[in-house]
């Protein structure tokens, strides 16, 4: 029997606005994690942040590139963000789709690399990011936090495990 791919771990659709949503008790039995979200903000101009194991330290170095569908594409990096910010601009508008791949999330001998793709077609454009969570702890929770507002009802979250 082939090894299952994208084993579904949990999913949730917000019935009402929440300031923070989290996946917790993530088992350490897979190699990688894949997360897919479609979210919108209850307060326009707010934005979603992502953290692992509630870590709010400056532990999320990142490089990124993207565009807005007009003008010059952008790229850059930062060595000390305190979370992952998928949105291409400051403040979201409309529904944002995010896919995140976290590699070797349960390994305790390395920092955790990952890739994020995001798009908000109605406003912010699209962005790709490569990040590193600077911790050797296994990831047991992933939190989605609305900065400046709350995640709107109808926002969806799904997490999958990928076997080695």
């Amino acid at each position, binding site marked *: 029997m*082939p090894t299952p791919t*994208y084993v579904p771990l949990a999913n949730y659709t917000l019935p009402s606005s929440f300031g923070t949503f989290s996946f917790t008790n993530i088992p350490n039995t897979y190699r990688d994690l894949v997360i897919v979200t479609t979210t919108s903000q209850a307060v326009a101009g707010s934005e979603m942040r992502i953290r692992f194991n509630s870590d709010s330290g400056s532990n999320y170095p990142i490089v990124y590139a993207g*565009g807005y*569908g007009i003008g010059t594409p952008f790229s850059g990096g930062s060595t000390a963000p305190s979370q992952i910010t998928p949105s291409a601009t400051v403040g979201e508008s409309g529904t944002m789709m995010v896919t995140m791949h976290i590699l070797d999330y349960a390994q305790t001998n390395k920092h955790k690399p990952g890739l994020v793709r995001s798009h908000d077609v109605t406003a912010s454009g699209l962005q790709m990011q490569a990040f590193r969570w600077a911790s050797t702890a296994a990831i047991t929770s992933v939190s989605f936090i609305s900065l400046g507002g709350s995640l709107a009802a109808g926002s969806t979250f799904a997490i999958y495990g990928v076997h080695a």
Partner: protein
Amino acid sequence: MSMKLIETVTLSSPTLNIVFSSIPQTGTDLLVHLSARSARATVTDDVMMVINSDTTSGRYTMRQVLGSGAGVASTSNTTYWGMYLGEISAANSTANVFGSVTAYIANYAGSTAKHAMADAVSENNATEAYQHLQALLYNQTTAITALRLTSMNGQNFVAGTTASLYTITKGSDGITTNI
């Protein structure tokens, strides 16, 4: 198993359209993989993905970042008649070379607008080659039951072109929790 192959199509002769129809509504997201070459007498051709046979202009929005190896640009469009996935290799590119496309559609069976991401690359052993990163939207709320992959320019895909459709289904392992 959450990621399930629905269908693979491999062309044995030049073909204008690759169609996935009667898509089961039991999944959460759709994943399309395409390895394609076009008969268009240029270096690249443009690939469109039509949803539910709907070619109505104004229902598809695209924002993209594209690189040519010599420069980078970001453009958008709201008048296409399908989801614009990007460019693949065509007849004037290096022989036997195929372009690659991946498209991911979230919540395809739900009753909200359909968001998608796509990556495309046209392979070519020369200086002219392109990579696209796409943010896509189909603004209709009907569930997706059919997808048609086709050339924007009315050209055939060549024999050897392969397209695969997968569903990815959300669920629970009974351990991971939500708050």
